[in-house]
């Protein structure tokens, strides 16, 4: 049984075909799948690219060992497609077909899609887009984060910039592509638009959401962000993550009332009395000195206790949970932010649920991950293909 049959969801009745199986296409498809769409991950014999991405489960052979693939693929069907005719049959009636090709060797062209789904939308999520001089360039998360300037603000002033861990740029692109494709699908369902369409989404442009404001400031001749040090950003100070006796405390103090409350919390009467420290920018000038004070003061405290007491004083403080602490954060537990995804070889994995909580039609909580090709026979039969 396909997952959607016992889980209607807000996107029930929408069929999505992912022909790429990258992190970006996978996350886009995941949002569809978690909300009840029928998502077919069409994979080559050796499995799609996310199956080869770390982290891997020790002792589980490829292509089923990837935890990242499990995260991206719950509630989807896995189909190994024998030929082009079968692909056309699978795509019949699809609202969305996703690939990752920058304009060459498209596995299913827009014309072919129109033939099997009159209002189908083709979505290409690539590193750099379908046009432009970088179109054929090799991409990566770090490459895109470099070209958007996001990492130019991260790290020590004289050292190299810092590359964010994991697949963050691709996840952002998947999210952006979901907005774009949901918009196109809804426009067709509302009757505002008809016929085929080809969406061009790039990881690069998706991640400009983090730096576009700075770009406008630069164009206007105003100063733009630069590296000031780890966790240092103009003009907010204190801003940072400090070790306490039982974990890490996240601090952001911007306004005079937050600063005065922060001084009250930590017993910094002398600092509260310094007139110029009422201004965040002035505090930033003395950040090294103030950091030593804060660090010395919070080291023997409990991070959770400080965060709680700080929040009671309306200061934006929080614990910074480590990966193993995340699952027990009371706020996340209460809201069901994590749920078990199960895989026949990996067992149960605790992973984030869909972040948007629709009260009338919630997303799936957790779900099952299909082994490579597990749904091939059923999907091809359903599509009317002889095996």
């Amino acid at each position: 049984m396909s997952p959607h049959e016992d889980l209607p969801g807000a996107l029930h009745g929408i069929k999505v075909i992912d022909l790429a199986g990258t992190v970006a296409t996978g996350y886009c498809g995941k949002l569809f799948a978690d909300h009840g769409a029928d998502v077919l991950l069409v994979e080559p014999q050796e499995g799609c690219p996310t199956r080869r991405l770390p982290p891997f489960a020790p002792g589980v052979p490829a292509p089923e060992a990837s935890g990242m693939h499990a995260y991206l693929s719950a509630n989807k069907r896995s189909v190994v497609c024998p030929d082009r005719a079968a692909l056309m049959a699978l795509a019949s009636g699809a609202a969305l077909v996703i690939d990752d090709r920058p304009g060459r060797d498209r596995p299913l062209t827009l014309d072919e899609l129109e033939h099997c789904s009159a209002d189908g939308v083709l979505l290409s999520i690539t590193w750099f887009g379908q046009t432009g001089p970088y179109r054929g360039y090799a991409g990566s998360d770090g490459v895109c984060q470099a070209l958007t300037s996001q990492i130019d603000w991260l790290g020590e002033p004289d050292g190299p910039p810092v590359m964010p861990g994991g697949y963050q740029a691709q996840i952002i692109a998947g999210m952006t592509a979901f907005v774009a494709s949901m918009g196109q699908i809804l426009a067709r369902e509302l009757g505002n638009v008809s016929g085929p369409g080809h969406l061009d989404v790039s990881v690069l442009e998706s991640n400009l959401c983090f730096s576009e404001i700075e770009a406008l400031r630069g164009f206007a001749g105003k100063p733009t962000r630069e590296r000031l040090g780890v966790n240092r950003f103009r003009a907010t100070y204190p801003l940072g993550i400090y070790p306490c006796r039982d974990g890490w405390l996240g601090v952001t103090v911007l306004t005079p009332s937050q600063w005065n409350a922060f001084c009250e919390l930590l017993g910094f009467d002398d600092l509260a009395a310094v007139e110029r420290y009422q201004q965040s920018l002035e505090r930033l000038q003395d950040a090294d000195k103030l950091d030593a004070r804060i660090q010395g003061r919070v080291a023997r405290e409990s991070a959770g206790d400080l965060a709680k007491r700080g929040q009671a004083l309306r200061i934006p403080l929080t614990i910074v949970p480590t990966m193993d602490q995340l699952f027990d954060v009371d706020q996340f537990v209460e809201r069901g932010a994590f749920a078990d995804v199960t895989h026949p070889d990996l067992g149960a994995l605790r992973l984030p649920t869909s972040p948007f909580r629709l009260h009338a039609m919630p997303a799936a909580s957790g779900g099952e991950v299909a082994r490579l090709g597990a749904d091939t026979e059923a999907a091809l039969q359903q599509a009317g293909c002889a095996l």
Partner: protein
Amino acid sequence: MGWAGPLATRHLADMGAEIIKVESCVRFDWFRGWESSQRWINDNEAEKHEPFNALNRNKFDVTLDLSQRRGRDLLLRLVAVSDAVIENFAGDVLPKLNLGFEVFKAVKPEIVMVSMPGFGSTGPWSKYRAYGSTTEQAAGLPHLTGHPEHPPTMVHIALGDAVAGLNGASAMLVALRHLKRTGEGQFVDLSHSECLLPLGAHGIAEQSLTGVPPPRLGNRSRHCAPHGIYACGDGRWLVVQVQSEEQWRALRGVLGGNVAGFGDLADRLERSDELDAAISGWCAHRPAADAMDSLQSAGVPAAGVAASKELVADPHLQARHFWKILDRPYIGQHPNGVAPYRLQDGPLEIEWPAPTLGQHNREILGGLLGLSDAELADLERDGIIGNRPRLPGAVGG
């Protein structure tokens, strides 16, 4: 207001939805600026701020003082002719104005409402204060970036805002699809912090799979080499992220003798210091742009680290017509990045720039709600609508 809500509605506006932004002359969008002095107001500074101008194009703007009965009534009349309401106030703002989902539902039973506080509207943290930095910290994400000798490392000053904005647009579209299919509206609740958890999925999955989180290795990786950021001859930095043996062979083809002695992935990971030194040596002799060209021509993922002020002139973005130059009162010509998705015939249009305060009062309140000129004049006289910021406590008009 601010970043997340306006980014969410900007996506919808770019795709053709009619977005009515409601501000007031006293409580205007704080992305217009923060300084509340009469001089700041007189200099029209509220119309000159880049953050506001980046996030609000293609929207209508009305001012309504919601603390006055007639202002609140007019908001409810707008809700009655709308499909959805979105807000990202702190949790206590709407209740104080006697507004909220139940109130909106009373005037429009099938309304969709998207509410996006930092930690969500339920749970023990629902009233907690948060900036975009706080939500990144609370999501544990900083434990996945940076050098082990540094504290857990943030990747933005306000990561949570932009990401929540994207999720807000997504959530709205899903709820509108449910409305179209079933005729049912609903309340949608977003937590900025939960929106960031997918960005750390690799770390969360590793913890779940192995019981151990991934180590922080600076710019290195346990799975790829070379993987780092290298200083170039012109003082700029170059990202190189080799993710396959094919890319490694391509890099070796470009760097030649510099890296001839390195073997398979295991060897390269083992000798990371040597490998990084060899690549640094090669980079030191050429500008970052040349290094990027050489490596990319061979198929190696590499890029110079751009500065924000260079983005508008970026050749690739220029060729893709990513930046549109708009003309707006008070600031004149300024760029806006188009929607980060386009159809086969090119970027989505930007029809008009970010609105000035109350720019569409007449068009929306007169045109859409049918208020007469005399009624609009009354509202203006009583400070319920207007076109200029006002200090709290100042008399309207």
